[in-house]
């Protein structure tokens, strides 16, 4: 019934589906300024709020999103020994959140590992970027970001809060250790 090539194709699909679904959740990355030593910094303060649009009217100027994100960052930084200050900080923090529509050409593929009717799938991709800037030199020291499907997350406050907490924790996990 099945020709060998069909089996091979199926196997390849299945393997790639596993690989894809594994990282389909949250995609986390970061950059570190070469030679930067985060151990030098002990205090931080929030920089001026982001004036850029998020690309989604539900999120633009949404204090529930902004406050949750800031609280999550503050909690994570506290456990890493950074102290929030209103005096002169060592680091200035910025964040930016954005949402964009993406088209996935073969969605059934990603979900089930195969598809009978492969069809394009449209979804909302959300990105959260956190920047740590040296307060003295105003140079970017570290940038971390998370990308994820934000499907339905904004419409459900609890889910959004969980997703923010999770993304922030995983972004800041990538901070280099301070010895």
């Amino acid at each position, binding site marked *: 019934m099945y020709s060998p090539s069909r089996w091979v194709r199926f196997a390849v699909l299945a393997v790639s589906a596993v690989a894809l679904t594994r990282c389909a959740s949250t995609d986390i990355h970061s950059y570190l300024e070469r030679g930067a030593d985060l151990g030098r910094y002990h205090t931080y303060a929030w920089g001026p709020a982001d004036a850029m649009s998020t690309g989604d*009217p*539900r999120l*633009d100027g949404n*204090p*529930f999103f902004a406050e949750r994100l800031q609280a999550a960052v503050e909690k994570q930084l506290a456990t890493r020994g950074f102290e929030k200050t209103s005096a002169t900080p060592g680091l200035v923090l910025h964040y930016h959140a954005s949402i964009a*529509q993406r088209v996935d050409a073969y969605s059934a593929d990603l979900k089930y590992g195969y598809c009978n*009717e492969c*069809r*394009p799938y*449209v979804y909302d991709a959300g990105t959260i970027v956190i920047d740590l800037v040296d307060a003295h030199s105003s140079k970017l020291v570290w940038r971390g970001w998370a990308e994820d499907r934000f499907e339905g997350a904004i419409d459900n406050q609890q889910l959004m809060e969980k997703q923010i907490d999770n993304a922030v924790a995983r972004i800041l996990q990538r901070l280099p250790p301070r010895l």
Partner: protein
Amino acid sequence: MRRLGRLVAVAFGALAVTGCATMNVSSHVRSGIDFAQYRTYGWGPADALPTGDPRLDKNLFFQDHMLGAVEKQLAARGFEMAAIGTPDLLIHYHASIDRRIDTNRADQAHGYCYEADCQQPEVVNYEAGTLVLDFVDARTNRVIWRGWAQDSLEGVLENQDRMARQINEAVARMLKQLPPRL
């Protein structure tokens, strides 16, 4: 059994989607706020953000209808427009239009597709309208509630009656999400 459960879920989902067109309504609320403390409201300064559509920018017909719909719904919920002095709540709204894309909608909404649709995946461009309502505590100047409604605006903006109906439905469904005042 599980299959049956799934079928029921799909049926309900389809009902929910078709029953109220495709309008998506939701809200965020500040926790630990007692909404019974708010009785009067006033309109905050008008929104300076562009709507993303010249037909809607500074469109007084739209604006009048929007304000009227909110005032009617709030009156029904026991809020009063502040005649004098500072109101308890300041209300802001923002309307915007984006071009968005979607694949065969029937498919996503109902979880299945008819033969013809399935073989010809179709990507559709449409205009998505979003209405956002913000309730601000006038004393603390903090947003305590944000509600929104999103829907396709195909053929709506061009038709004044349809626009009015769409605004009414959006506002009524958004304000239904307000926390109860005991």
